[in-house]
């Protein structure tokens, strides 16, 4: 993927909820553009609307108004089936609590989105091995989640998120459940992923994670109050 190509483009994005019969706007006219190869960290106090924004960017939630294009596709106008398919093939998710299937092995967890996308078995097995090796779990492909540490489970979740080669990797507090050392390992993994060409948007309270990102967006009361580019994009990233 070529740098400086917008993967994500949001224009005047709004999301309102009815609270006790009155509309409350969690995201208020937010505009944002994320280029291919960027690593954006969205930070801000609790309730500032960053998780709502992440849900909108991930086609999990639909904006009340505004336009949201991911890879040129209008996510805001997608129906449930189309949005589900788009989440499967276009976006990778990493959650704070990993959400791995406890009955499946690490490799099977990684294969799950590919199986849903009808990727042939041989291809997805090879891809799962490749991804688990990439995240440093090449020797633990047959382990089940309960046999893995928190950091290892999160690595499996990252591998799963990358399974269908998404245009965008969204991470919601990816270090939130990890201790400091494991959190650092996770930050290093995200850094390597980004250097290899993966576009990442993370929502975090973790200052170290935010500092490691190329770009940091501060939100408050549903709007962006600060947008800093800390590191420019690499000239020729490799694809993860």
């Amino acid at each position, binding site marked *: 993927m070529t740098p400086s190509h917008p993967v994500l483009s949001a224009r005047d994005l709004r999301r309102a909820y009815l609270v006790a019969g009155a509309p409350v706007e969690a995201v208020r006219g937010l505009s944002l553009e994320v280029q291919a190869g960027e690593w954006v960290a969205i930070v801000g106090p609790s309730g500032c609307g960053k*998780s709502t924004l992440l*849900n909108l960017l*991930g086609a*999990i*939630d639909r904006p009340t108004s505004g336009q949201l294009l991911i890879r040129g596709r209008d996510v805001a106008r997608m129906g449930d*089936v189309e949005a*589900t*398919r*788009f*989440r*499967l*093939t276009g*976006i*990778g*998710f990493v*959650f704070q*609590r990993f*959400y791995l*299937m*406890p009955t499946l092995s690490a490799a099977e967890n990684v294969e*799950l*989105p590919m199986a*849903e*996308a009808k990727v042939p078995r041989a291809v997805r097995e090879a891809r799962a091995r490749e991804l688990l090796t990439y995240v440093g779990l090449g020797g633990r492909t047959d382990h089940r989640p309960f046999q893995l540490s928190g950091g290892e489970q999160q690595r499996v979740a990252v591998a*799963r*998120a990358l399974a*269908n080669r998404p245009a965008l990797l969204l991470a919601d507090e990816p270090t939130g459940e990890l201790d400091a050392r494991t959190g650092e390992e996770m930050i290093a993994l995200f850094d390597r992923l980004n250097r290899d060409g993966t576009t990442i948007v993370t929502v975090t309270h973790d200052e170290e994670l935010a500092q490691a990102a190329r770009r940091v967006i501060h939100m408050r009361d549903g709007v962006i109050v600060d947008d800093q580019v800390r590191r420019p994009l690499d000239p020729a990233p490799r694809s993860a």
Partner: protein
Amino acid sequence: MVRWWCTLTGAVILTAPVAHVQAQPARRTIAIDERLATAAGLAVGDSVRLAPTASAPTGAWVGIGAITRRSADPSEIARSDYRVRVHLDQLQGLTGLGDRIGRFAVMTRDGAAGARVRDRVATPDSVSAAINTMAFGFRAYPAAAVAVETSATFRVVNRFHRAIGIITIVASAIFLLCITLLKVDERRREVGALRLIGLSRTTVVRSVMLEASLIALLGSALGAGFGAAASAIVNWYYQGVYATPLRFALVTPGILAIAIGLSVVLGIVSGYLAAQRLVRTAPLELVGR
């Protein structure tokens, strides 16, 4: 010398003659049932003396010609008495009732039935009609009618069992549905995460239904195995207690097919309902956001 009281069941059922065992040459033979043979230690070829009471001084010496096994007749289960088959004249002598016969059975077969009957009959009902026409003072019934009359109690018991079965199935279905709903609901977060990463509603519903039906199939197979084992134990125990070949508990292929089929259908339905409940909830709500 061994003495015992027994019930005679031949053409006529009466109570109280006594058989008296002693080593004497046999003249005529009788048949006794297995239970009596076991209790008295008798075997084919032994001689016994037939007398109307245990203290009677005289009686005809007869040989044990056969030992009979009781038929699988539910109406015989609770009877603890013994069965001895004697000739009609012996029975008349034992009972002292002469020609007074309460009831008797007629079995028709080629060469056995009288020409008049054979010529006039084609079906058991018409045999009965023919006998009723010819014989004075008797009322004849076909064996099927007698069987229906004597099995009326068992039909009621059978209906009672059927009702219990239906209640059990309905209760099990409700229980299974509740358990499935609870177990599937425990996976809210997992299902929510699957939906978030892009697995479709159809995939989730299909997975839950497949799992539920496989569990139901496995459960019904285990249940069938347990039922077969329990049935074998029940039959072994009660056949021993009542000395009868009657099977008290049956696990037939038909029953197995109904049990497994019903179980799988219930599994699929409960899985479907539980899965629908989940996929109709927003993924974010499922993961607790």
